[in-house]
């Protein structure tokens, strides 16, 4: 999978003031590459990720995946893309409280046409969730919940993984485990775009992109 982001821009207004959440950002991501996006809170990392995943419409710029422009896709086509080729990990706790760990992990499969659960069970083993499979999120620790959330975004075997601060507020052991999972995914040919404040973990990535006030700083 190759991702190409070109002059991506998003402007928001706060009261009467307008500001650039993402200002003319361009970069590319190759197949099997693990790239970290770093920068202070509110610098535009989440907006950038949301635009790549089709959750926010940019004001200008282009996003291409394997040479195909994503911004031409309809809402439903983008949904299909997220359900097949993109694994998106949202910031914070995002598990569905009414569903067990296993059901949470299988959610992308429930929503799409791919009904093969083999990879979901594989991820449950890899992320050490086997004993918790039938538990509900309320009974899990923060680290366990985050591991479930990551397993869920990988269950449909996406080509591009976008992880918005997947290791925030995690103990070093859990943070390390998650980074290792992403590194393994990259070895398997997937591309990972991850934002993080943890510089120790970021050091394990292939490349770092630094954003400040919506702008990419080299």
């Amino acid at each position, binding site marked *: 999978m190759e991702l190409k982001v070109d002059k991506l821009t998003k402007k928001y207004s706060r009261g009467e003031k307008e500001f650039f959440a993402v200002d003319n950002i361009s970069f590319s991501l190759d197949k099997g590459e693990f790239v970290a996006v770093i920068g202070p809170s509110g610098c535009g990392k989440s907006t950038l990720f949301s635009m790549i*995943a089709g*959750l*926010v419409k940019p004001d200008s710029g282009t996003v291409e995946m394997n040479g195909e422009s994503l911004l031409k896709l309809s809402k439903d086509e983008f949904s299909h893309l*997220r359900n097949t080729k993109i694994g998106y990990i949202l910031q914070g706790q995002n598990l569905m409280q009414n569903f067990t760990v296993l059901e949470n992990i299988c959610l992308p*499969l*429930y*929503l799409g046409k791919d009904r093969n659960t083999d990879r979901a*069970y594989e991820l449950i083993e890899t992320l050490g969730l086997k004993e918790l499979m039938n538990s509900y999120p309320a009974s899990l620790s923060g680290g366990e919940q985050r591991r479930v959330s990551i397993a869920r975004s990988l269950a449909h075997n996406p080509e591009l993984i976008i992880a918005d601060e997947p290791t925030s507020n995690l103990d070093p052991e859990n943070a390390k485990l998650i980074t290792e999972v992403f590194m393994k995914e990259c070895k398997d040919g997937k591309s990972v775009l991850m934002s993080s404040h943890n510089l120790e973990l970021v050091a394990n990535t292939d490349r770092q992109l630094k954003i400040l006030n919506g702008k990419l700083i080299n």
Partner: protein
Amino acid sequence: MNNNRKLMSIFGIAKRNISNRKIRSGIMIAFVFILASSLYISSLLINSMNLGLEKTIGRIGADLIVVPQEYENNMRSSLFLGECSTFYTDRSYMDKVAETEGIQQMTPQLYIASLEAECCGLPTQIIAFDPETDFIVTPWLQDINKKEINYGEVIVGNGVVADVGSTIKFFDIDFPVVGKLENTQTGYDYCVFMRFDTSKIILESERFKSLVDSTIDPDNVISAIMIKAKNGANLNTMASRITYTYKIPVKAFTTNGMFSAISDNLDNLTSFSSILVTISFILAVLALICIFTITINERQHEFGVLISLGATQKQLVLIIVLEAVMIGLIGGVLAVIISAVASFIFNNAITSALEIPYLDNSPSDLIPLILKTLLIAIGSSILASLYSAIRIGRAEPITLIKGDE
């Protein structure tokens, strides 16, 4: 590890949302239940009254009914509800009535109420008829393969507690029961029928004379004259003529006219019930809209998560509508089951409290009512969910993801 678990569908997701949010779902189901059960019960009562009235009018088989003045209510209650009543007038008035143009057949009837006393087996409306001229009761006998009844014998309506071959006691006299009529679901089901000459046995008995009327002339009394008009005869003109021309103390009614008061009351009741059902429909839908709006608002982030995992907004709308369908269906089914069971168990209490001949619990009439109730229950729930569903369907994905942050 067992990898062969059946995967959940969109329906399964909606079902889980209902089953795991018990309080919210319970409140919504309760609103649908109140709406559906009030609709079911009021429709059941009105349908039963309408059908009872139609059946009574159909069963009478006469075009005109002539009754002593001021006794039309007794006659009406006796025919519609099977309420007991004794009233009579002079038989000689029949000759005057017979002069009326347009009469094809006419026959007298005598109404005697048995008493709730030791002398009588049970309080029942006794109707005596004249086998020579009768065109009302005789056809019913044919329905039970009986050509005639003899002097001293009685036949009983389907609701009378007496079996064929047993006897039934009126004013200390035992009468053999020789037939039981088919169930008609009218007041006639609670009446006992005998010939005029048999009724004389009662009228001449010491018990009747001491308890009811000692001055009665058994050969010269009738309670009503049932008239069948010729084809094309103007029934209203005939009724007016009988009532006003002959200067005799009787009043003639067309059969429909006899029950017009009940029919008018029924129309009022139908309008009143429609208003009540409409109000409860609006209140239930408004309450459901509020609950849907509040809970769907709280669940925006949940829908945002589903979008991030690849759900289309159509799927989100489908989840909300399916939840509404399930709430409507559960509320509707509960309302139908509880209302139906209550109407079966409290059948007698309801019919006597509301003065209707019977509750129409026949499957052929209940099935359309059940379907109508379920349809309105589900429809109101879907209607209430539409605003929230459309809002979620049109929202920007990022707005949903940020939802309750």
